[in-house]
């Protein structure tokens, strides 16, 4: 059985749920599962519930204040050299992939991002390309195998928990690595975000401009949802990029996605496909969005959306 090391992702001591996906995945590969926690934070109980048998708490001034991709990457590289695991796993979040890339660069070993499935002690795997539109089978030839799990590809499941052994790890980190430690935060006001909205009302090029979104805004407000859009829209400066759904925008998973005047290019589709239900409104019955959607209405969105708004208001009295 391979020895596995998992990277815990946390924000100043609050564990990210993505780590539990990585642990769940790790349990399919082996039972000897150590976890690295960067910074003096007590996460052992939570990690144990999901199958960690050992927790390394890395202690260093640079790790106690805040996240730093280089300090975390160097810590992970040092622990890999020290504990010699066979496989190292992170969840393929923005930070998970970055810390793994930092560790891999420092050890000059390969790193395979966003795997869906691995075989033969991670000598072969299926990974995601094109943000999920395409898959790649690849081989990995390395002493220690660094991989990340494609985020949201599995559900985190608790294990028959034991309490993990906790060990302190004191990495040597150059003071210069403080250069990439977070120095501040700018947080937006909390509210329904595109990623968490129960309904997303999306508009594409056919909205024709910023004003074309007014009826979509009204419908979204009536349904407690958010407006989304395609890249054709953000590229024209009609909506901010934070509204863009897709490979290089936000991945959404609402109960209902209403895609109006959007053709359904593959890069848009990969950001929308996790929606529970998709309703396409399009003049073209052969548009990819119409063909792939659960529900479709053929016609002019400029007429249909206002009519839907009126109908919702009428029923609500």
């Amino acid at each position, binding site marked *: 059985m391979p020895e596995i090391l998992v990277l815990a992702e946390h924000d100043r001591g609050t564990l990210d749920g993505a780590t539990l996906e990585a642990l769940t995945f790790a349990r399919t590969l082996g039972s000897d599962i150590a976890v690295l926690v960067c910074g003096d934070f007590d996460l052992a109980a939570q990690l144990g519930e999901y199958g960690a048998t050992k927790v390394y708490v890395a202690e260093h001034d640079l790790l106690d204040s805040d996240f730093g991709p280089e300090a975390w990457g160097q810590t992970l590289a040092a622990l890999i050299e020290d504990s010699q695991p066979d496989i190292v796993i992170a969840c393929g979040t923005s930070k998970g992939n970055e810390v793994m890339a930092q560790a891999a660069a420092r050890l000059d070993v390969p790193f395979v*991002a966003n795997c869906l499935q691995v075989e033969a002690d991670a000598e072969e795997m299926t990974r995601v390309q094109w943000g999920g539109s*395409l*898959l790649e089978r690849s081989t990995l030839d390395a002493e220690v195998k660094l991989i990340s799990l494609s985020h949201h590809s599995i559900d985190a499941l608790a294990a028959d928990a034991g309490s993990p052994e906790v060990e302190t790890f004191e990495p040597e980190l150059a003071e210069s690595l403080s250069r990439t430690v977070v120095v501040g935060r700018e947080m937006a006001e909390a509210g329904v975000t595109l990623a968490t909205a129960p309904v997303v009302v999306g508009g594409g090029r056919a909205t024709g401009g910023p004003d074309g979104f007014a009826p979509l805004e009204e419908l979204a407000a009536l349904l407690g949802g958010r407006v989304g859009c395609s890249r054709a829209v953000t590229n024209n400066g009609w909506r901010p990029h934070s509204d863009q759904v897709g490979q290089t925008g936000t991945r959404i998973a609402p109960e209902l996605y209403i895609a109006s005047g959007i053709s359904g290019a*593959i890069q848009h589709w990969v950001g929308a496909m996790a929606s529970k239900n998709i309703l396409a409104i399009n003049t073209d019955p052969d548009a990819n969005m119409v063909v792939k959607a659960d529900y479709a209405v053929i016609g002019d969105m400029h007429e249909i959306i206002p009519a839907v708004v009126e109908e919702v208001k009428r029923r609500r009295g």
Partner: protein
Amino acid sequence: MRVLVCVKRVPAPGARISITADEQSVDTTHLGFAMSPHEECAVEEAVQMVERHGGDATVLTLGPAEAEEQLRYSASLGVNNAVLLRTDGTAWDPQRTARAIAGAVETLEAADGPFDLILFGNESADSGGFQVGVRVANKLDRPMVNAIKGIVPDFDSGLVTAKRDIDGGFEVYAMAMPAVLGVKEGLNLPRYPTMRGRLASKKIDVTVIEAEADAGGQAKIRLLSPPEQESNTVRLGEGVAAAPAIVDLFEELGVL
């Protein structure tokens, strides 16, 4: 200031991505080529920084001779210099790519001085390895942060302030230049080329360097399409007459 941007030539697929018969690559018979939207923003940012602070912007790509198209496109937007690290067009693994790019950066800097900033995309559009920029930064021993959506260089302090996109806001980093950043779409709104830009881009010299580097430990076996989600699209009707059926659906799904 001096800025370098690294971009990758990729096919620009539409509704679906077809794979060649040998399962080694995307079938580009009917496709144009582009770069990742993240990289388009990196190019725009470099041009804007040079407009604001003076100096020059360089674009570099590792790829086949045809990748000159992406270099000239960048030049049409205002990039001053172009470098092609030429390969035979086969896909290079991330370690190999990073080795070649880091080597080329050293050569370019030995000739003309260091780049204050080197910009990468957060991830490439096709292979999405999430690592080439990190590896290059590491070889050059420079600070690097990914997922950046705001960049402000300050030449009095020598620090660049960078904002990283996180759930619900931004993390702020302050790094001494020279530094390396991986950027995401949304950083800015890329301009379109002007006629004058297009004409000027035809005249710039592309520096060609034969790319050379040892292969890394990851190798592609083949590409495959993900399983198609079955869809039996239910037609709710046509035009405004479908409005009641749409609202019925809202009720059924409990979103009203």
